[in-house]
């Protein structure tokens, strides 16, 4: 330990401590990377190689891209990726627009009907509808077999709304008053004052929405009668878990895809979101903190 007048956290740690930290961090990073590496390595191994290794490959005996060729051949994965991209883009844009509009309205004091509306929104948060009632709503609004069924029922997430409302409330009232003095109406205040100050929270909430849309798999099975409309989440799940439960319940052959194919699907499905993350990362910590403190 170095003895100085400065507090402990301001001093430069000794080389031993720094080395220890480096080792600890390296271990943590390896722990995170190892499963990802195993997934990648397994996706690149041949089927018999995988069986020899007991299901998971750490170092493939020979590189094989057969798994990727197999799944891309049918056009199912590519199609599902396109569908998911579309749903994610459209859904995120619509969700953000609606969440911003509602959050801004609810963040303003003395809005007519603001309190009951907020309670109504929070009510759905506390008592979410069951699967069957939700299905009946989707069915009677004519959304069965429409891509909109994967977007409209999930347009506003209450948690995201509350976080964003909290952020808007933290914007100094003086700024808004000043804008009003300059003759701006509510839409102009939102567009020219509030939104430019809220980039961080919008980026974070946008990412939350995008990930949620990208990962959604269950609803497609319930709302669609045509599997050609399945998004990537549904297809991925079916590749990875399909058939595993078969043998014990029915004596049926467990028709699972080879492990290498399953892992190739995992890689293809995670890649797009992994690619987007670095660009949004800098907003991330800030936006989440905002929500935590102000909500």
């Amino acid at each position: 330990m170095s003895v100085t007048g400065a507090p402990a956290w301001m001093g430069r740690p000794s080389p031993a401590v720094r080395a220890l930290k480096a080792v600890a961090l390296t271990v943590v990073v390896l722990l995170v990377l190892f499963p990802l590496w195993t997934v990648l390595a397994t996706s690149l191994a041949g089927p018999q190689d995988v069986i020899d290794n007991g299901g998971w490959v750490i170092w493939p005996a020979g590189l094989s891209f057969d798994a990727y060729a197999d799944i891309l051949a049918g056009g199912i994965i590519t199609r599902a990726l396109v569908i998911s991209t579309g749903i994610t883009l459209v859904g995120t844009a619509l969700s953000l627009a609606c969440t911003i509009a509602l959050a801004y309205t609810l963040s303003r004091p003395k809005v007519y009907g603001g309190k009951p509306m907020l309670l109504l929104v929070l009510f759905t948060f506390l008592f979410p509808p069951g699967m069957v009632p939700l299905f009946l709503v989707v069915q009677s609004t004519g959304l069965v077999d429409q891509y909109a069924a994967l977007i409209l029922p999930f347009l506003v997430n209450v948690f995201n709304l509350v976080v964003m409302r909290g952020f808007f409330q933290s914007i100094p009232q003086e700024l808004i008053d000043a804008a009003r003095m300059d003759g701006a109406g509510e839409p102009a205040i939102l567009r020219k004052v509030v939104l430019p100050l809220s980039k961080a929270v919008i980026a974070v909430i946008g990412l939350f929405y995008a990930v949620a849309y990208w990962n959604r798999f269950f609803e497609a099975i319930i709302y669609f009668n045509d599997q050609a409309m399945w998004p990537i989440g549904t297809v991925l799940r079916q590749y990875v878990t399909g058939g595993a439960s078969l043998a014990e319940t029915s004596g049926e052959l467990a028709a699972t895809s080879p492990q290498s194919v399953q892992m190739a699907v995992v890689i293809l499905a995670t890649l797009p979101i992994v690619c987007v993350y670095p660009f949004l990362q800098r907003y991330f910590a800030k936006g989440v903190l905002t929500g935590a403190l102000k909500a």
Partner: protein
Amino acid sequence: MDNNTIGRRGLLRMAGAGALGLAAAPLLSACGGGASPSGGGVSNAGKQLVPWPAYVPFAGPKPDAPGDDTGVQNLYLKYPETLAQSVNDTVGDGSKVTALVVTFGPPPTPVTQNRYWQAINKALNVDLQVTVVPDPEYGQKMTTLMASGSDLPDIIMFTNLALPHSLEFIQAQCADLSEFVGGDAVKQFPNLANIPPHAWKGMGRINGRIYGIPLERPTPANSLFVNRTAMNEAGIPKTWTTEQYLEAMKELSSGRKWGLGWYKTLFGGLGSITFHAGSLGAPNTWSLSNGQFATTLATPQFEEALGLMRKLVEAKSAHPDSLTVSSTDMQTYFHNGTVASIQDGFGSMSLTTLTKIDKRYELDLGYPYGPSPTPWQGAGMFGYVTFKKAPADRIKLLLRISDYLSAPFGTKEYELANYGVEGVHFTKEDGGIKTLDLFQTENNNTLPFRYIGTAPSVLYLPGYPETAQATYDWQKATLPRSIPNPANGLRSATQVSKSAQMGQIMGDGIAAITFGRKPLSAWKDVVTQWRNAGGDRVAEELAKEHAAAQ
């Protein structure tokens, strides 16, 4: 109300009902409502019973060794050279037919690019639109389907999963097939008449009537698959006594190898103990005497089987992860020789398994070991197909579709339904079927036509005639002593509503005792718990049903 348009009031009403979760209740209770164990509803007690469909076996290509009525399957060592034609009339009328089936594979390529799908549509002369439901979500999809009550597909497939209210739903919404397939009427559909009686009985009647076409499966229940090469190297005989079996498992366990592997889901019910209980002579799930049903759980043979499983774990003969790994992982351990035997569904005796083993060793089935074994039989079917209510002509058309897809091994129809188009999905080489690349994505796993109609299964393992012969020999030796579950096809409302909970009590109890968390003496408490959870009521309901069926 038109389903595609909705007024403001309607929307609000729906939204309100949805939020409160009220909408489902009236619709579900509208489906029959007869969940009471006796009297009306779906029970067969006190009803006039429609006769089972007549059994007219198909005179197809001569098998290399014939099956018999104990459940032994026809053995084919080679693919038949000349195929029979089992359907001569036109099946469909060019109309659109929708079907909902479960799937265990990846989604199929859309019909516009799928040559297998196109070929089937052409052969059936219908526009068959198949909706596949992944098995993990199957229960939920069916629940919403039953709640919606409208827009039902023409063909609805039910697995043997116990779905609450499914029988009431079938009775209310699906066509009564009794007049089309009951007794001799089935003869107008020769391939349906070729479905063996055990499959029909396994499906059972509803309210005394026949509502479905069963998807037949061979009779053996969960069986023991063994690595015969490893057994031979260790000098282990094919037939063994209980002591020899325990000794053999110990012999095969050393270092990173184990004699036996179970997997997690086997402990969700009786799966893990099926082979052992059968070996030691325990009744299959229930025993029936003087019209009374008694559970196998309380028999000394069952407890002996539990004790034996415990010994396997104590001797470190079972893979240490047996309680936690997935079926897929344990199967991989079996395929690569890490474990020398695995308990699995009989359906795993297939080309897929053999391809994964890749001739590392010789696959075989394990013989029951006890002095007077009673190997357990399965339900004899995987599920059944029902049809939405429609005029008689339409029902006949749907039955013809199921009939076509049920065409037996050795027919042109079977070849198309199971292997696709020659030259596109498969070729014939050395007296066998050899699948081509396109078969990887276009087959009856990704597009499960086999759940609309399926042929009675035969033993045919292209490229592995020795394994097929060994399986036949095993069936010949094992099946004559095998016993069915006397509750097969009998309706019990409590069984349907409580099966998950009761299965979990049994599975947890078996796991706790096998892996040494509880002493063997604790089993009595598990049985009591199971009885209180509904076991005793199920026994009563089954007895009533059984009495009515006499």
